[in-house]
């Protein structure tokens, strides 16, 4: 018997004759839209006014002995279903418990409870693996970007607030990173980008002249990532320390890079040594190795040595011949300098035309 009918009976009339024993049998559908209500459907005994006895709780944390307060929210009837609309949105990844307690209905199955978890980044109980780039221990004072990379989609679970940059006196550098009102996540939600405020780096731009650069030459800093989902104080998942050296304002020039070719018939890595720290994300996206006919060689790129070296391991083995390494125009170092174009250049400086290819021979 659908809920709507017995509810109409229960509310509309007095002295209901509960001739049939209708069991309490409910099931739950999770929110169809993020932040949306949960839906409860099923049957209930006529005497059980579930509209007034439906509550949702936070699922008890481990060791929590006290009874939980029910969530603020509204119970809304939608035809045969009941919706619970939380006043404040359900948390992605959060676990809750919906309960219907039919007090005084005299029925054995007069209570029903079910846990549900809101989709989203999983409530990670194991420690997420986190990496910070650049990983170099020395960085130029005009470093533009940091990346925090996770082993899973962490949108909603981590934000800039979990990342702290402190100098060697422990002072938090709070306005070093730009705030856009939203986080800069990669498409797969595994990499968070932190942009150092370029107004504080570019010479002669107001913020730099008033506040000073966020990273001072000669000082050491620590960038750390905290896990705030733990029950006790946030613990540090990883930290990267680095010392600041002079700003890097030269354009990239592949002619300054050294290529160490592999030997033929091996799968040795091709090594490229740069003259500076490169942007890891762009490095891994902007380099292609081509054979003599211009075909891309399949293989894997990894950065090494604090993003000062790039290694390319082919899927097969190297055939003898001449190869080319092609660098995309988007390639940057950690300071935003590109091939033939420095990020911070005098107004009116012309861009040099620089070759974006290097060749090497395998023999």
């Amino acid at each position, binding site marked *: 018997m659908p809920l709507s009918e017995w509810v109409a009976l229960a509310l509309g009339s007095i002295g209901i004759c509960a001739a049939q024993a209708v069991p309490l049998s409910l099931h739950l559908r999770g929110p169809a839209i993020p932040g949306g209500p949960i839906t409860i459907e099923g049957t209930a005994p006529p005497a059980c006014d579930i509209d007034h006895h439906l509550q949702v709780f*936070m699922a008890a944390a481990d060791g929590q002995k006290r009874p939980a307060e029910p969530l603020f929210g509204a119970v*809304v009837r939608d035809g045969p*279903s009941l919706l619970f609309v939380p006043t404040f949105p359900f948390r992605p990844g959060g676990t809750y418990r919906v309960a219907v307690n039919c007090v005084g209905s005299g029925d054995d199955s007069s209570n029903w409870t079910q846990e549900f978890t809101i989709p989203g980044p999983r409530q990670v109980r194991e420690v997420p693996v986190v990496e910070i780039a650049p990983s170099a221990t020395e960085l130029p004072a005009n470093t533009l970007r940091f990346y925090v990379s996770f082993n899973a989609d962490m949108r909603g679970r981590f934000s800039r607030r979990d990342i702290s940059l402190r100098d060697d006196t422990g002072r938090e550098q*709070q306005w070093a990173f730009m705030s856009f009102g939203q986080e800069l996540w990669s498409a797969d939600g595994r990499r968070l980008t932190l942009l150092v405020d370029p107004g504080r780096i570019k010479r002669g731009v107001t913020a730099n002249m008033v506040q000073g650069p966020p990273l001072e030459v000669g000082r050491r800093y620590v960038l750390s990532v905290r896990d705030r989902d733990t029950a006790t104080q946030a613990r540090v998942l990883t930290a990267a320390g680095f010392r600041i050296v002079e700003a890097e304002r030269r354009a990239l020039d592949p002619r300054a890079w050294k290529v160490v070719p592999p030997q033929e018939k091996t799968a040795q890595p091709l090594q490229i040594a740069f003259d500076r720290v490169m942007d890891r994300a762009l490095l891994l996206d902007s380099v292609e190795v081509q054979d003599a006919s211009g075909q891309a060689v399949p293989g894997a790129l990894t950065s090494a040595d604090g993003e000062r070296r790039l290694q390319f391991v082919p899927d097969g083995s190297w055939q003898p011949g001449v190869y080319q390494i092609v660098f995309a125009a988007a390639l940057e170092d950690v300071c935003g300098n590109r091939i033939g174009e420095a990020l911070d250049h005098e107004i009116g400086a012309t861009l040099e035309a620089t070759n974006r290819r290097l060749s090497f021979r395998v023999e």
Partner: protein
Amino acid sequence: MVIRGGRKAVSGTLLLISMISFATSASAALRNAGALAFSPEGVLFIGDNASGAIYAYAMARGTAPTSTAAPLEVDNIGDRIADALGVPSNEVAINGMAVHPVTQDVYLSVSRGYGDGMLPAVVRVTPEGKLFNVDLQSMQATEFKIHGVPSDDKHFRNRSKDWPVPAAVKYDAKAQIPVRTLTIVDMKFHNGELYVSGISNEEFASTLRRIPYPFTEKAIETKIRMYHIAHTRFETRAPIRAMQFATIDGVDTLIAAYTCSPLVLIPVASLRDGAKVTGKTIGDMGNGQPVSMFRVNVYGQDSLFVTNMGHGPRIIPLAGLNKATEYTPTNSPKGYPSDLSPEYPIGPVGKSVMFVGASLHADAVNDKFLVSLTRDAESGSLNLEALPVTPLPMKLDRIWSEFDFPGGGPNGS
């Protein structure tokens, strides 16, 4: 809000959308629920330092409680509010408290979550200890925008060199706090106007704003200067931390408490727009930071009850403030007097009374009881508790004395 079945069934999604969009623009502008105050008719004022405004919610006047409920006692209220708001306990901050003058419900302003996702909330606690969400979105609100809010980049001075403890990193963190977080410190409704203490963006920062209600564009702004006995100087920046009104020496007077802790009288008539007023310092309650100040009746004596972050509460008879000596550089103790100085506490500042725990917010509930949001020292739990004003606002469950022993009770019991 419950929709009963049997009426026209509404599509759940449409209803949800209508619930979300049913909000006055003023309610939607509330970003941070801070200091709270009520008018005698039950209009709720919320101070919002994030948007630099005050929001007034005209609610139904309500009726006095008829039940003879036991004194209010809600243990772990922070946890319970967190449950009700659907967040872990460490993501709830209780910012302010006020008791409804008619219903005696305790209203708590709350920050839920933090950072970009922080949401403001107001929770109502009935005398029976039940929690309800105050649905600000569905209420009519009017907004008063404060003028002269300091910009976000203005911060406090770093005091790490002033004092050896705690470690400098904590002073560094304190110095990063924007000064605008003190734009609105305390609010009290008096004779048709909302009085707001706090600071402005000027060098002479301590500002008292008188805002007529219903709100218009207008407010009277007065700068307040006072002689700080412990600091041995006139001060113009530190805001009034707590205030009350009473008739002193025959005139309507604002009684102001400052940190470390002068008690200052300011005739309301002197609070004129654009004026710079020097208050009359009549005493110092001791080093520490006043938190809440409200009127109580102690054995027939009209008095102030003043709580303090660094001290137990004081009960100050209002009669003693009449014809009080004014403290100025000439007649005040020299050399940074402190709690250890023989003169302290100085002036007619009443007596310190027993209180167990640290009161974070307190207010009068009725003639006999006050309510306090108290952090218990031993367990750390945050409890909302009613306490008798007389004989003493104390609890005995964690105190051990002769009375606890058989034979040691009253009359040898």
